[in-house]
């Protein structure tokens, strides 16, 4: 689920917070909490670290609120602060370069052949009641290269549009589309063979009828 941004509410809130109604900041930041946390989790790959970084981000947003110009969506601005927080921490950790959002990899390389199937029976979202399905999805996403994981997280999990994703990650819209395509192909290849077991079985059939 994503919370649609409401620029009028945000602008009004910001004006009033800056005029002294500090408590309104809780309401202003609440719709962005999920995206902040999961962007940071994607970058830092550690829940406790991501949570601490999310708190730091929210505080930085508050302290810098007067600098928000309204020429981007508020959440986009917030996410760029989260991204800087995450990258700063990665730098301090001396993290491997390919784990950084700034990493440049050869976009043309890699094998993106999907898992070849001859039929597909849809796995309904009710199947998520089974814990292992969510676990499979999380594990597959976690296993993606960082630059793909970040894009999937914002586009497919937080359901942000291409433009906002590009702005939040500091990459072009074209790069968002290419990376999303690669990420989905990698996920399909990894997941499709495993997800088959979660599709409803046809009565009287064992195994996977054609």
């Amino acid at each position, binding site marked *: 689920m994503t919370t649609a941004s409401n620029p009028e509410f945000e602008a009004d809130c910001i004006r009033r917070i800056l005029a002294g109604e500090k408590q309104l*900041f*809780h309401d202003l930041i609440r719709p962005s909490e999920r995206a902040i946390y999961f962007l940071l989790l994607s970058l830092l790959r550690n*829940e406790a670290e991501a*949570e601490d970084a999310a708190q730091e981000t929210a505080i930085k947003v508050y302290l810098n609120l007067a600098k928000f110009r309204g020429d981007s969506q508020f959440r986009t601005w917030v996410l760029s602060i989260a991204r800087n927080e995450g990258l700063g921490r990665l730098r301090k950790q001396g993290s491997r370069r390919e784990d950084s959002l700034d990493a440049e990899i050869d976009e043309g390389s890699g094998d993106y052949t999907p898992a070849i199937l001859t039929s597909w029976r849809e796995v309904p979202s009710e199947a*998520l009641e089974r814990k292992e399905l969510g676990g499979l999805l999380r594990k597959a996403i976690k296993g993606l290269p960082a630059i793909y994981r970040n894009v999937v997280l914002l586009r497919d999990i937080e359901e942000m549009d291409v433009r906002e994703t590009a702005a939040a990650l500091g990459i072009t819209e074209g790069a968002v589309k290419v990376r999303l395509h690669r990420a989905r*192909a990698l996920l399909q290849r990894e997941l499709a063979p495993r997800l088959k077991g979660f599709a409803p079985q046809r009565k009287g059939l064992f195994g996977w009828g054609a």
Partner: protein
Amino acid sequence: MRIDCKHVWEHISAYIDGEVDAELRAEIDRHLETCEICSAVLDSTRNVVVLMADDRVFELPAGFSQRLHERLEKELELAGP
């Protein structure tokens, strides 16, 4: 022109997002009518995309929001805007 499977795979993500132009969409649709492999690849990819968007897959840690707002509260008391 008849497009091949590889060509369809290259555009699957854009196809799912409704970002291919009408001509290419029509070509892909024609291909899908007769290619069960590409149909299954498309359906499974779309299924993965739908499942990922479900909030149950990625949940905030228990108490995350409460801890965040408690820390913010302390900060709001200290700092001026």
